């Protein structure tokens, strides 16, 4: 039977501002321990984003918190067929973390300290509130913030690495794989790869991001040492200062990455 389609509702801007203000003032802080959330219809806006009635179930990891990131990233990306502009709208993600995937957000990014231990200590309380702002709101309203949002981080990880050969056949044509999420696996191989590559501006270029992931994928010995990845990103960033590596052809870019990585391995 065909799954029924609905149009997704999201929070209005004013509702997001109010949620954020209530959290900042600590008025609503306690509610970020609770699974229940009362949504007021007046706070919602119907979008033109069509969704299937049945939401994907996100896996809640028991051991390593990042162990289910890949599976969840693919599930979210397959379900939400949205464009970049929609996916950079904080109203969308705040609704998802507060309402649709609240249980997941609580389990993966909930506050570990007891509420009673925090409420009378302004410094600890401020730190806990900032943590909620990061993972439930995506502080900043840009990708630097959304990178830390419980769900946006997963969707974007999948989106930025999904079948690059379809998005830019001229550049990535020779890298075609059977699995469209092939490079998502490398990006989410460790949390460190994700953080290191996406925290720098050059990671916004799919040419650079995928070329680095391609190298990491083919050189596991290099990739298994997280210090190597950090140094590679740092060195490439330095080179970017004098050389527009974003304008290089694929072969030249891959050659440059290989050269820098080999120099790191030799040291």
């Amino acid at each position, binding site marked *: 039977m065909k799954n029924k389609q609905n149009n997704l509702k999201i929070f209005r801007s004013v509702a997001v*501002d109010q949620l*954020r*203000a209530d959290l*900042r*003032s*600590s*008025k609503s802080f306690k509610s970020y321990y609770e699974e229940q959330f009362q949504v007021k219809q007046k706070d919602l806006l119907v979008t033109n984003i069509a969704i299937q009635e049945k939401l994907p179930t996100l896996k809640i990891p028991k051991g390593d918190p990042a162990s289910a990131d890949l599976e969840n990233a693919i599930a979210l990306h397959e379900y939400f067929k949205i*464009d*970049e*502009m*929609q*996916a*950079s*709208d*904080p109203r969308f993600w705040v609704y998802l973390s507060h309402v649709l995937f609240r249980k997941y957000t609580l389990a993966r990014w909930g506050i570990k300290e007891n509420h009673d231990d925090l409420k009378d200590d*302004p410094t600890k*309380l*401020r730190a806990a*509130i900032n943590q909620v*702002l990061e993972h439930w709101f995506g*502080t*900043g*309203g*840009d*990708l*630097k*913030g959304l990178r830390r949002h419980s769900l946006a981080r997963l969707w*974007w990880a999948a989106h*930025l690495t999904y079948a690059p050969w379809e998005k830019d056949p001229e550049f990535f044509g020779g890298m075609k794989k059977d699995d469209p999420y092939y490079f998502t696996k490398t990006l989410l191989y460790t949390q460190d790869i994700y953080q290191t590559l996406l925290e720098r*501006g*050059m990671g*916004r*270029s799919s040419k650079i991001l995928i070329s680095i992931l391609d190298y990491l994928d083919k050189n596991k010995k290099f990739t298994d040492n997280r210090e190597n990845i950090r140094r590679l990103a740092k060195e490439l960033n330095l080179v970017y*200062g*004098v*050389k*527009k*590596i*974003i*304008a*290089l052809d694929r072969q*030249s870019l891959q050659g440059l990455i290989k050269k820098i990585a080999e120099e790191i391995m030799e040291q």
Partner: protein
Amino acid sequence: MKINLKSYPHPVLGNGDDLGGVFSVDFRYELSKQDVALICVFDLKSKAIEELIKKGKASFIVEAECASTFYRNAFSTQKTADKFIIPSKLLRERVTVGFYICSNEEIANYQPSDCHPDYKGLKFDIENGDVLAMGGYCSFIAEKEFDPMRPPLSSFVAVVEGIRHTGPMEIDYSSDKITIELSKADYKNYCDTVREKAVQGVIHASIVLPVLADAIYQVNGRDSDHADRNWFGRLESILESKGLAHKPPLEAAQIILESPMARNFESILSLLNFNNTEEV
């Protein structure tokens, strides 16, 4: 156009006095529902680099970046006037556009004339992608409704209640808006008075002005940690469009707030007159 001077391993046109000549760009953008067009006219006066472009050994590079949508791409051309199209769905809020001339291949023994005396007699081996000239960068807001000439303050500044009962106001630059956090006691007083027209001048001068001046200081500084924030792009765009980019921060803030000090004293005088009238 802003320029960040750098230390390159070879002379670069536009990087201080490395090289004599000119590389400037007349840039404008057009926003439509479907696309954003980047329209560039390059003005290059450097025999050596003009020659490299003619031979296909170098290209004009336009690098566009939008932190909000994780977009970064470079367009390459050898024409002195060109137009580049980006689908609108790939851009949101601040878009920065940088202009360069880069080599397309290795160039041995590069020795442009008109070099700074420090480079006299030296030859350089240029690699593929090396920057040969920089034309600076600029930014715009990819939002048709945003008018930097008449910006609503609430589009980039918010006053909120903090967690402390009393204490100084704090500023948070890490949100999409510049967030001014008042203590609970101060916030209550703020809410009780902010809608009164008579006190708005005082509020602008005492709360918003110092914060805005500090924020402008951040925008004018190089390599700000907050460059990806939405407020940063909006404020940068306002400064640019009002011709305030090079004014001291406090002066620029007063122009944006439209004479807050004068309105402050008008507010105080009107309150004093009101009190005097009441006593009679």
